[in-house]
């Protein structure tokens, strides 16, 4: 007899569990995008429908419009602002910058081929001028911003911008600029210089530009 109980006990427990589940006809739904709702207090009373028949009751909590808590995240760097746009526009005016490196008002923006982060011959010439200017202004530190055109994937373009900024930094280091004066950031495709959706605009947007920090 003892043995028999041993064999049937798990079955009895299983059935008891089933009875327990089905007897409580109310499901409390835990919502993901909602704060704890006073309605979902976990009560499991069985309910009766309007016509007296048993009904399964489900409490659907509200969607609360929760937004990020920005209290510790509002210290955004002013460096990331839009002031670089002016520097970049000036930098693109290559024809007006033929004088001495020392008289250069700003640093040339470097452009790249589609999906590439190698610096081609003409751009190397511009970078050499940038290096000369940086040599003549030893107290200046700059941030190199890498950008991509709008085509392709967001994350890939962030990596591409990162590679472009790093390639420019490396080139300037090789020309003797102290790495301590050069920082990099990638904006991927997020900050186009030209707004169009054609090769002309894309060519302007595949770039590394310089933000003078001090």
């Amino acid at each position, binding site marked *: 007899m003892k043995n*028999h109980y041993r064999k*049937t006990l798990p*079955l009895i427990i*299983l*059935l008891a569990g*089933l*009875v327990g589940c*089905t007897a409580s006809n109310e499901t409390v*739904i835990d*919502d*993901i*995008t*909602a*704060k*704890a709702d006073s*309605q979902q207090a976990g009560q499991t009373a069985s*309910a009766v*429908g*309007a016509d007296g*028949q*048993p*009904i*399964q*009751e*489900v*409490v*659907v909590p*509200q*969607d609360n*419009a*929760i*937004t*990020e*808590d*920005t209290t*510790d*995240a*509002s*210290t*955004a*760097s002013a*460096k*990331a602002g839009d002031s670089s746009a002016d520097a970049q526009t000036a930098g693109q005016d290559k024809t007006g910058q033929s004088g001495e490196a020392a008289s250069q008002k700003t640093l040339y923006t470097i452009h790249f081929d589609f*999906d590439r982060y190698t610096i081609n011959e003409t751009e190397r010439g511009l970078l050499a001028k940038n290096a000369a200017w940086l040599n003549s202004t030893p107290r200046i530190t700059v941030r190199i911003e890498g950008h991509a055109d709008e*085509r*392709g*994937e*967001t*994350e*890939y373009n*962030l*990596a591409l911008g*990162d*590679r472009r900024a790093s390639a420019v930094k490396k080139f300037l280091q090789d020309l003797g600029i102290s790495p301590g004066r050069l920082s*990099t*950031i*990638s*904006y991927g495709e*997020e900050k186009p210089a030209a707004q169009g*959706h054609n090769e002309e605009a894309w060519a302007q947007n595949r770039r590394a530009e310089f933000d003078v920090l001090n």
Partner: protein
Amino acid sequence: MIKNIAVLTAIFISFTSGLGQAKVYIDLSAPSERRMPVAIGEFRELLAQGALPQDPSGAIGAALAQTLRGDLVFSGLFSIMDAKGITEKDFGPCRSIGADTLVAGGYTVDKDRLSLEVRLLDCVAEKVLLYKRYIGSTNNPRRLIHYFADQLYESLTGRKGVFSTKILFVSNLPGNKEIFSADYDGGNVMQLTRNKHINLSPQWSPDGRKVIYSSYKNGEPNLYMFDMRSGKDARVSSRPGINVGGRFSPDGTRIALTLSAEKSPELYILTLATGEYTRLTDNYGIDVSPTWSPDGQRIAYTSDISGNPHIFVIDLTTGKSVRQTFEGKYNSSPAWSPDGAYIAYARADGGAFQIWAMDVVTGSARQLTFQGNNQSPSWSPDGRHIIFSNSNNDKGSLYVMHADGTGLRKVITGIGNESSPAWSPYLQ
């Protein structure tokens, strides 16, 4: 004693059949062209004798019926028949309009509290399949009926419905890219970030409670985690360079991401409990956009190591990477299907991107979209649907389709210029 077991077994059988698990009305493993005809009756406000209607225009009832119709049409398994005036007692009229099943319901309104009673009836067997009450808010009647649609779907197919799932997406409508959530069908939009900086690539935690995303809100592209319940936001990765493309491991303990702190943008795994980074790739190229296999053993990603961007899969046990795509000039944004059998991705042969799906075992790929410029595929948790972004110059929008490319439809959020969609896991 044997007799006792027999009695208990009989009770057990009656319980399971009482739970309605006996019949599968729609067998998803044997797809058929035939759609199950479902009649959707009117949702009427239920009033006590002499009481004044709280929803005199019937707006709530209309929203309930319209949302249910949208859910069932979306699944691609049902044809909807209008059954105005047919009540839950009218099996005969239900059959006479050619419906196998009928949904009929009523609701009561008490201030902002909405209580919905709804039945699913088998008109042929004259049987009640579901009888449920949903209690929620009058602010969002759609939510109650989405929950019911999940139950209906499950009772007819034996599989979980996706109608209460959500999507994350990015829109620059506020003037900069912010992160939003919405119901899977684009309704009930909520703005999650409001930091006025660039916010990118939102992804869900496996339990659907947290969102990870990259943001420039502290100047540099760092990875953040946002708790959907508390609104608490924490920085999870802020190495020098980029901290982007974070994707939770299936067990939620790790995050795969791209960091460029060392020589080039490489894939890493961040173990959340220890804050420890493990580098996965080691080359001079770009490695981005990780997506975990459902068993957590492999990660598919985009790499330009072979010259152009292609999809690779790295085995986390051996550390060995294998190239998966050999055609197209640009293959990116891989997304591993929930059943592990496919990797969806975006492929361009020079011009626009289209969505493709590759059989993981055979490597054979199939093109799923043919028009426009489409990227960022993301699977529904049941693997039956794919959401993706479409960009037409300045205008971005979201589309969904069935996993075989049929049933294409636009997801209307009302926000505009949407991109980077991410479909949630099951949320209930």
